[in-house]
């Protein structure tokens, strides 16, 4: 079983991100449990969402304390607290990076991918919502599911132009890892 912790601020779509990630894994033939952890329900407050992926039914319901994978949707959170807490050796972190925020120095035994998700999203979607780009990068970095599964999950979740553009944003995130741009 792989455990994922998503860091974001309330309103940034962490729950949708977790749900899309779980759906993509499901479409790729896995079991997935995606669930949010709500704080005091105000926009902008730090919050987490969690996903577990497994080849078997997932029964464990506790929050994720020792993630194998990390997704940081808002890098400004790294100013305040340690998003790497409990991170497992061999872990992979995907950080939605922008230049104003200093990214952490590489830590031993973990891989950190910084992806300019919001910049790519601004190009593709016209809005700086990098979630689907980051998920594309996650798919490429972890191999937990294919880009096709992710794009299918996006097309099921959204409709019309928004769906198409987000599927494209996912591809861009995927290729940012596989091709380096």
């Amino acid at each position, binding site marked *: 079983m792989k455990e994922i912790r998503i860091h974001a601020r309330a309103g940034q779509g962490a*729950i949708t991100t*977790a*749900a899309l990630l*779980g*759906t993509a894994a*499901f*479409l790729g033939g896995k*079991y*997935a*449990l*995606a*669930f*949010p952890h*709500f704080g005091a*329900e105000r926009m902008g407050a730090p919050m987490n969402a969690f996903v577990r992926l497994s080849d078997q*039914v*997932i*029964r*464990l*319901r*506790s*929050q994720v*304390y020792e993630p194998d994978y990390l997704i940081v949707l808002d890098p400004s959170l790294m100013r305040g607290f340690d998003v790497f807490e409990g991170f497992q050796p061999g872990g992979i972190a995907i950080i939605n990076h922008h230049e104003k925020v200093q990214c952490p120095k590489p830590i031993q035994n973990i891989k950190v991918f910084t992806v300019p998700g919001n910049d790519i999203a601004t190009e593709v979607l016209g809005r700086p919502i990098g979630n689907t780009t980051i998920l594309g990068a996650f798919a490429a970095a972890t191999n937990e599911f294919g880009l096709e599964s992710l794009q299918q999950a996006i097309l099921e979740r959204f409709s019309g132009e928004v769906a198409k553009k987000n599927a494209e944003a996912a591809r861009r995130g995927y290729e940012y890892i596989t091709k380096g741009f």
Partner: protein
Amino acid sequence: MRQYREGSHAVAEIVRLCKAQVISAYPITPQTHIVESLAQMVADGELNAEFINVESEHSAASVVQGASATGVRTYTATTSQGLLYMIEVLYSIAGLRLPVVLTCANRAVSSPINIWNDHQDSVTVRDAGWLQFYAENNQEACDLHLMAYRLAEDHEIMLPVMVCMDGYILTHAYEVVDLPEQSQVDKFLPDFKPVHCLNPDKPISMGVLMGPESYTETRYAIHQTMMDALNVIPGIADEFEQVFGRKVNCLIEKYRLEDATQVFVAMGSMVGTIKEMVDGLREDGQKVGLLKVIAHRPFPKKIVYEALKNAREIAVLEKAISLGEEGPLLSDVKSAFCGYGNQPKISGFVLGLGGRDITKKSIFEVQGALAGSQVDVKFIDLKI
């Protein structure tokens, strides 16, 4: 069909498949996604029902009570303060023998205000005359709703049913659920045929005054029905399996109890976490097992006793407490052993209140406390 759905949406889909005709609810987190989905389905014409918006839970319960009395299939959902606000109507619905189905998206009660999960809300209304089932996961939540309508409307039962699913932990969790086809649901759940109903052409009175000469008999009848339901449920669960090709447990589930000397007893979503623990401890060669209680009311006392009688140490874990006494489930489990010799140690643990996370460590703490003498109330993960 296997789908990846949020628990709330999956339950709303089941209610749609069950063709609820009158739905009334007042939004309260974490129940909102269920009733929002249903309102959307009604608005989109996917569900031919009347969705009645009301100004409070008391009214929501009153609306489904009245609607059910006219002989239509009804649904409501609530949680926490909303459920407590419904209480007088909940008793009334049971007294009128109306087959209302209610989802309780379990949440802590005030004060202090807390929107997160525990079982204090539904446990508080366990004596209202509603059958009460607790789901471990979203598949079970779906299946228990199908069972709920079937049982509630069974002429041998004719009592309301409350399906309890942990707020957030289940309602807001996305996981794989196998949702049935309409044809399967229609086969399992025929149209609701009321025993009596309000009809202007054939007027009757319901809920009339009954004095000391007859009130007792109404309570006796409900109690007797609850006891009878314990015998009716397995047969209907068999039918469920025939139609849907999947087993549904409605009373208890035994997990690795064969030869177990140490047994955890619990309800709801924490059972999943405990199952993981039990597997780990079994790999270490420890003889541990789990008894999942699904039916809190009627409480399957004899079945619980039979499942637990060979255990030496029993740990009852619950997300509720009768303040000033002990956990309500603990009292039930202890009473199951009353009158038998060779009593095991039966200890009670309160945890997961107001959304405090239940981790494997929490369950270890419970297990660690079992070696000592029996405890009535031990708070786990307590920060003092």
